[in-house]
């Protein structure tokens, strides 16, 4: 079926969104067409606003609306501990635990030689610069437990340990609620290595 040009333009834009195929795009477009004008305009405004108001925090590269992000601007956070994550989404995941009181540094990716992503493409230089400014005693490396995340962690440890700063790595082991017999050798090996006294 042929749509008017304005609808085709909308469909085209929607299909560019992650996880949205032609079917979902049609569903969203149909909803927008039948929704109240005010609803559609609110969505359009929210999109424009987020693009204008949100930038990367110049200290940790998290999303920020004010000059610094809410975490860097919070005086109750302990700035001597920096948790290093790959993406802002990972930061949000660590925050959900609500146990961590330090600050963050978002690398915006992980080292992946095969994809041509080296340390220079990440916010690693900025992390090292922070170590010279703030009194930092510990770097917690919370990159993903996959080959790219491990490579990044090893690289950071090699770079930062000589500066006399403690570098720790989040433990990787068995998922809570799972059965031991289904664990793979690598995960189980890691879990055994990181065992603790009870």
């Amino acid at each position, binding site marked *: 079926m042929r749509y008017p040009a304005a609808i085709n333009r909308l469909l085209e834009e929607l299909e560019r969104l992650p996880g949205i195929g032609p079917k979902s795009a049609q569903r969203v477009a149909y909803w927008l067409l039948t929704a109240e004008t005010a609803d559609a305009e609110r969505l359009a405004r929210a999109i424009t606003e987020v693009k204008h108001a949100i930038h990367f925090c110049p200290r940790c590269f998290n999303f920020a609306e004010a000059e610094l992000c809410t975490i860097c601007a919070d005086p109750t956070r302990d700035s001597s501990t920096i948790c290093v994550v790959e993406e802002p989404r990972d930061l949000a995941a660590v925050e959900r635990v609500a146990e961590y009181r330090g600050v963050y540094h978002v690398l915006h990716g992980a080292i992946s*030689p*095969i994809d041509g992503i*080296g340390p220079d493409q990440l916010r690693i230089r900025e992390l090292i610069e922070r170590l010279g400014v703030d009194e930092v005693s510990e770097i917690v490396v919370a990159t993903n437990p996959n*080959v790219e995340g*491990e*490579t990044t962690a090893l690289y950071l440890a090699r770079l930062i340990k000589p500066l006399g700063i403690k570098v720790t790595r989040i433990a990787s082991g068995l998922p809570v609620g799972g059965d031991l017999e289904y*664990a793979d050798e690598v995960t189980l090996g890691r879990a055994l290595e990181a065992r603790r006294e009870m």
Partner: protein
Amino acid sequence: MPSYPLKALVLRKTKLGETDIILTLLAQDGSQVRAVAKGLRKPSSRFGGRLEPFSVVDLLMHTGKSLELITEARTVTAHAGLREDLDRSASAAVVADLLDKISVQGQVEPRLFDLSVTSLSVFETAPSESLPALVIAFLLKAMAMHGYRPELENCAACACDAAGSSDFSLSHGGVVCAECGALDPGTLRFPVQARAWLTRLLGSTMAEVAACEMPAAAVADCFALVRSFVGYHLPARLKALDYYAGMAP
């Protein structure tokens, strides 16, 4: 044939949607296979850490509508040591990248799988100092299997005896005599001593290369030459090789 077993080496992972991954694999017969592992990015994935790059796995495959699906995975060799050391993982990434570029779907070359798995196992335990020589040896051997074996004895252009020449022509694919070298503006300087090392690496097993204690000057000359050779003959850039070259001490 809805379900079938496949032994393969994991080369790389590409994100697909929210939690799925497309794996590029080198099958045991040397052909390339691309397959989907559903939910692999979830910490609770039943595949766990079995499908990380550089792992050799026994898979149960299912022919899906458009792509192959991985339904079960069992570790044959995890090569975990490659992921726990920066130099070893960078070396292994060169292996994975080259295989990703030279292997083709449906094109069989069983020697390539054996060479790759053996190389990765040697990379995992060999002395760190031997890694550059091992990377050079792997690239040479894999390129030779792919149909690009550098001519290291006679002139690659006129077939005369090129014994004393330090000219190497990328377009002719080997050493050239001084006369032929002068005709080709792209001729590289390649010292005779380094040439002897290249011949030796081609004729040695990976375990022998790990123990050969190649001098630093020969490593530098051979690495530069092999890097140019690979770059000249492959249509795609080996980003992992650029990365590897950049991290040399």
